[in-house]
């Protein structure tokens, strides 16, 4: 009963077995690359780590609607689940982690997590929180001006809604019904600041004040996020304008490798959320529907771990850019 009911779910969403396996695969590979990053940090090889852990479901569920290289993505620094789904590789991620010359995001110039790919239309990610939102509306406006059906996905954490840029973008998107989807990954903390000191009222509810839909979804349920995002992308492609999605999730690691979260949150709280791990939950769903068994899972995990290990070795052995390289590329040439 419960099964038949839920089995209706992914089918009702038009997702076939391949889709589900791709989702699962990319959630897991994002997790494993992240875990490897912390190991490299503890080994003193990686200066800085910032994690996706806990948010892979929200990321893969939302980004699954993107047409790579056509639609645009403005990710934020935790969205490795998205960039891997679009086509970046563990190698890319770890080359960036170690700041090597081959880092496809920035050639060793930016911190890890600051994604960029011209080919995949992943717009160069910034560190200042929130700046991506006005930019995303402009990118969406370009599609509208040219009469194209492209969509822009713009992402941030809950604190990225506190700055003025978020509001200015929401208002502009609402006025011109721009094809943009705002995804807020509300993971409860902004470094040490809990959401109650960060967000008044409700982020999702605010959309109504701008004249477009806002929905709150279970960010640890990849299908729930996918469903909301699919509708949002359809609205955008259909010229009906923007949608705001607030994915309720949780930051399972410290803010970054520079942060000690024991200063400001209880271990119990983290434990509670571990029970809701989006990957575990999705695997349970897949198993309930006989789309995954322990054996297949071990197999896939082993493949992934092997790929990540290979990527790590490659990245560790890869050269840094020449120091003088800092002097180049300040201005673009015609």
């Amino acid at each position, binding site marked *: 009963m419960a099964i038949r009911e839920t089995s209706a779910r992914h089918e009702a969403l038009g997702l076939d077995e391949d889709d589900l396996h791709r989702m699962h695969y990319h959630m897991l590979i994002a997790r494993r690359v992240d875990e490897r990053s912390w190991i490299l940090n503890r080994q003193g090889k990686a200066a800085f780590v910032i994690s996706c852990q806990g948010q892979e479901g929200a990321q893969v569920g939302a980004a699954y609607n993107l047409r790579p290289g056509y639609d*645009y993505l403005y990710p934020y620094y935790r969205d490795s689940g998205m960039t891997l789904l679009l086509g970046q590789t563990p190698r890319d991620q770890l080359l960036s982690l170690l700041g090597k010359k081959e*880092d496809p*995001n*920035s*050639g060793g*110039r*930016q911190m890890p997590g*600051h994604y*960029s*790919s*011209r080919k995949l239309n992943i*717009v*160069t990610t*910034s560190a*200042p929180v929130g*700046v991506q*939102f*006005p*930019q*995303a*509306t*402009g*990118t*969406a*406006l*370009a*599609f*509208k*001006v*040219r009469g194209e059906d*492209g969509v*822009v996905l713009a992402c941030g954490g809950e604190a990225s809604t506190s700055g*003025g*840029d978020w509001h*200015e*973008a929401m*208002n*502009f998107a609402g*006025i011109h019904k721009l094809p943009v989807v705002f995804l807020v990954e509300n993971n409860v903390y902004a470094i040490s600041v809990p959401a109650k000191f960060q967000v008044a009222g409700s982020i999702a509810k605010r959309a109504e004040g701008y004249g477009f839909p806002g929905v709150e979804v279970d960010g640890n349920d990849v299908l729930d996020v996918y469903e909301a995002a699919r509708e949002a992308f359809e609205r955008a492609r259909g010229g009906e304008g923007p949608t705001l999605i607030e994915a309720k999730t949780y930051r399972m690691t410290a803010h970054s490798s520079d942060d000690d979260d024991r200063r400001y949150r209880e271990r119990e709280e983290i434990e509670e959320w571990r029970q809701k791990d989006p990957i575990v939950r999705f695997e349970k769903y897949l198993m309930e529907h006989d789309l995954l068994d322990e054996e297949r899972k071990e197999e896939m995990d082993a493949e992934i771990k092997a790929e990540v290990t290979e990527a790590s070795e490659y990245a560790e052995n890869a050269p840094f850019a020449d120091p003088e390289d800092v002097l180049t*590329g*300040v*201005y*673009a*040439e*015609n």
Partner: protein
Amino acid sequence: MATKNLLQAIHEGLAEEMRSDESVMVLGEDVGRAGGVFRVTQGLQEEFGEQRVMDTPLAESLIVGSAIGLSVNGMRPVAEIQFADFIPPAFDQIINEAAKFHYRSNGAWSCPITIRAPYGVVPGGALYHSQSIEAWFCNTPGLKVVAPTYPADAKAMIKSSIRDPNPVLFLEHKRTYRLIKEEVPEEDYEVPLGKARVHREGSDITVVAYGLMLYTAIEVAGKLSEEHGIETEVVEPRTLYPLDKETILDSAKKTGKVLVISEANLTGSVSGEIAAVVAREAFEWLDGPVMRLGAPDVPAAAFAKPMMDYFVPSAEKIEEAMLELARY
């Protein structure tokens, strides 16, 4: 060939670029139906429509931020900041975003946007329609800052700015919008960014100036020539960042005496950079100290006309300074 003032020349440059390149757009406050508070964009919305000439909400960070987003998706936006004094909300999008897109993505992305901003003291403008904001932006690699003064230069340079693959801050001194007219070619002609202009050859002293101060300096230079036989070479940077050091230094080495004039608050202004470059690289040629003349270090500029006039470096003060330098 028709004679045009600065305002008309910039308008014409914009219109021509929009005609020849569909990706060029104009966005800002009141740029559409009203044609801009100074009328620079007058008629553009009628000709190009509400989308390519868009009235934005009152949100400068959005204006520049969305321009950035347009540019990464194939457009060439020209963003208007109604008054330069109101550019601070867009500071982050200009300094941290537009200027760094190319560098931080290791060349994968670039940000070809033009930001127009009317600056400088104007009667009635008071404390928030008067500021000279150059210095805020001339310490930012990746950004170009231009400030043409003459109509013909301005028409060509707005085009060069739009065609430039980098973000360009295009400064227009409000008080020079209608101050003079000169012949402005119809056809397409080039004035490259990053090149200074020598307006007047001279062997005694060099004056470096731009905007309203440039006009005054050229006037006074004529006066000194007639009345004292002092020959002033007047150099206009035209681009404030990156600077055309070569042209400035050539003149400095030739005359051995340099005065830098700007309407900005003196301390911390772009004049300091120019003076420092000359003092360092033309040291052996200098027959006198590199002098600077600017506005006093008080907010620009009080509303009451007599107070405003006192704030702006006058022809008298400029003549004094030029004479002091010539006689040094």
